């Protein structure tokens, strides 16, 4: 294994200290910057949708991956963000302000939900968040005068400081900048006390308390940040969808977000990105598979949801660390070849775990 000799605390604190890491991230960013030269505007707008989902995934990662609070209703926050943003922009509010308002409002609703469910765990939390998203979907549908109800509402184009961004490449850079800003921000949060408090709450609420962490307020912070990011993602997504209707932000999208972070690997930012790539390509893969499937199966409603669900289950059972974990193992294998032992990643036999608290 490569050992990095650290010579100052700052090396511990800084992001991307390993040269390999720097190169990979740099290459990805360079690729994203060059994308408009390489892709047609159709694919650029597909990429913008991908950026929006990746951002929402990072939001969910903060909540589920870092803070251990499962949410099967995160699409509701994306929806709140999308509607708030679209409504404000339609009323002439400048894009940056509308996007900020979308994030803050979604974050506020998230914090309130977080407070309400702060004593819940596991299954109950999953049900509560699911119920919340169903309620939100209904509320959005019922607020017809503002949201257009189930008839939907059109989303105006993007204008930044009076300049209309109509070209796909212009929007591409805007979306990329927002995504990178939040990736950077979340990475910052996770190397600071607030982020560590989230990890502490995830791994042991009891000892988090005994070390001075107010568990309820840590959960509310996690819900706030997570919902805020999802809301901003919703604002971005709205412009790409061009037309909003409440059903778009239903259970299907929540499931998709959950799949992203589980497949990518809970507890890592790169996991959310890997997962978003995977989930974006999955529908294409499913379409390709459709050709091979018997007719009866292809015409079944909900085939896609079924496959999403199956993937979540499979990853949880076979690779709980997700693609990110796979990647770590692969890298270790290459670096230590031929000395790699499978045992490196097999957990030590657990000692008696009776009497553990929550």
């Amino acid at each position: 294994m490569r050992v990095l000799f650290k010579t100052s605390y700052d090396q511990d604190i800084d992001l991307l200290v390993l040269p390999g890491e720097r190169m990979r991230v740099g290459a990805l960013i360079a690729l994203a910057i060059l994308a408009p030269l390489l892709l047609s505007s159709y694919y650029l707008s597909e990429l913008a949708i991908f950026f929006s989902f990746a951002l929402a995934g990072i939001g969910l990662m903060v909540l589920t991956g870092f803070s251990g609070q499962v949410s099967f209703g995160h699409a509701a926050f994306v929806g709140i963000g999308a509607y708030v943003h679209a409504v404000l922009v339609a009323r002439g509010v400048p894009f940056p302000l509308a996007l900020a308002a979308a994030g803050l409002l979604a974050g506020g609703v998230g914090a309130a939900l977080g407070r309400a469910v702060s004593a819940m765990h596991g299954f109950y939390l999953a049900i509560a968040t699911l119920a919340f998203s169903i309620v939100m979907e209904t509320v959005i549908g019922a607020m017809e005068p503002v949201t257009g109800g189930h008839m939907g509402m059109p989303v105006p184009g993007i204008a930044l400081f009076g300049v209309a961004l109509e070209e796909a490449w212009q929007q591409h850079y805007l979306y990329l900048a927002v995504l990178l800003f939040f990736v950077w921000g979340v990475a910052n949060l996770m190397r600071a006390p607030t982020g560590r408090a989230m990890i502490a709450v995830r791994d042991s609420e009891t000892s988090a308390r005994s070390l001075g962490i107010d568990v309820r307020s840590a959960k509310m912070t996690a819900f706030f940040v997570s919902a805020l990011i999802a809301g901003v993602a919703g604002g971005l997504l709205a412009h790409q969808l061009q037309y909003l209707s409440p059903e778009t932000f239903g259970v299907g999208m929540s499931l998709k977000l959950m799949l992203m972070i589980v497949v990518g690997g809970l507890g890592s930012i790169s996991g959310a990105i890997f997962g978003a790539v995977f989930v974006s390509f999955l529908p294409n893969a499913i379409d390709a598979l459709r050709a091979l499937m018997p007719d009866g199966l292809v015409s079944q409603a909900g085939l896609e949801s079924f496959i999403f669900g199956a993937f979540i289950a499979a990853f949880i059972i076979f690779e709980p660390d997700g693609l990110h974990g796979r990647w770590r193992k692969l890298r270790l294998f290459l670096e230590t070849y031929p000395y790699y032992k499978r045992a490196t990643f097999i957990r030590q036999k657990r000692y008696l775990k009776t009497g553990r608290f929550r």
Partner: protein
Amino acid sequence: MSTLTVDGLTVAFGGIKALDEVSFHVEPGEVFAIIGPNGAGKSTIFNAISRIYTARAGSIRFHGREILELPPHEVVRLGIARTFQNIELFEKATVLQNLLVGRHSRVRRSAWREFLFLPGVRRGERAARRKVEEILDLLDMQHLRDALVCDLPYGARKNVELARALCAEPELLLLDEPASGLNPEETADMSFWLKDIKEELGVTIVMVEHDMNLVGRIANRVMALAGGRVLSVGSVEEVQSNERVQTAYLGAAA
């Protein structure tokens, strides 16, 4: 004034009294050991101090301040840190991260400043690391700093938990069976560290421990507990020779 004064502490689960009017006090700078057969209520005392369990009656005062009025997360701010019998570490985090969480009660936080990583945040991180680094040196754990806790063997975890508690700069340390599950060599290390912690850092220690050898080596006073009641308090010899203590142990063994 005593560091810790427990008075008439009663904790009950349903009809069963895990602690029945337990009273004792801990003096500044001493190592106070609590012994007793399984189910005596030893851990329950710690859990009542940490406010994980709610006391039915009694009081727990730290320098005269009533702890039973505080929410759980404020206890450590007074200067009381603890370890757990079953080890409660943050498993999917590194040793360093675990210890930094130990600093939580001593650092200022602001989510949005941290999100933007303003210069003050970096200064805070450096300061936290300086303290953590001291503790890593004290417990001879530098080589573990970047390891994930879930990859560590049992003995190392015990030390990490002790280190994490020390990072809170406690005045009073509650240790629930610090030597259980350790081999003789590790136990010897532990007893040296506890001495260092007491003498160099001036920390007052209350520990639950079954290993009478360790208790004899470092404890100033011992309290024996059985069935939620105090049987005897005094020096190690006094308590060991106490008749009621002997019957309690024999009774438990029989």
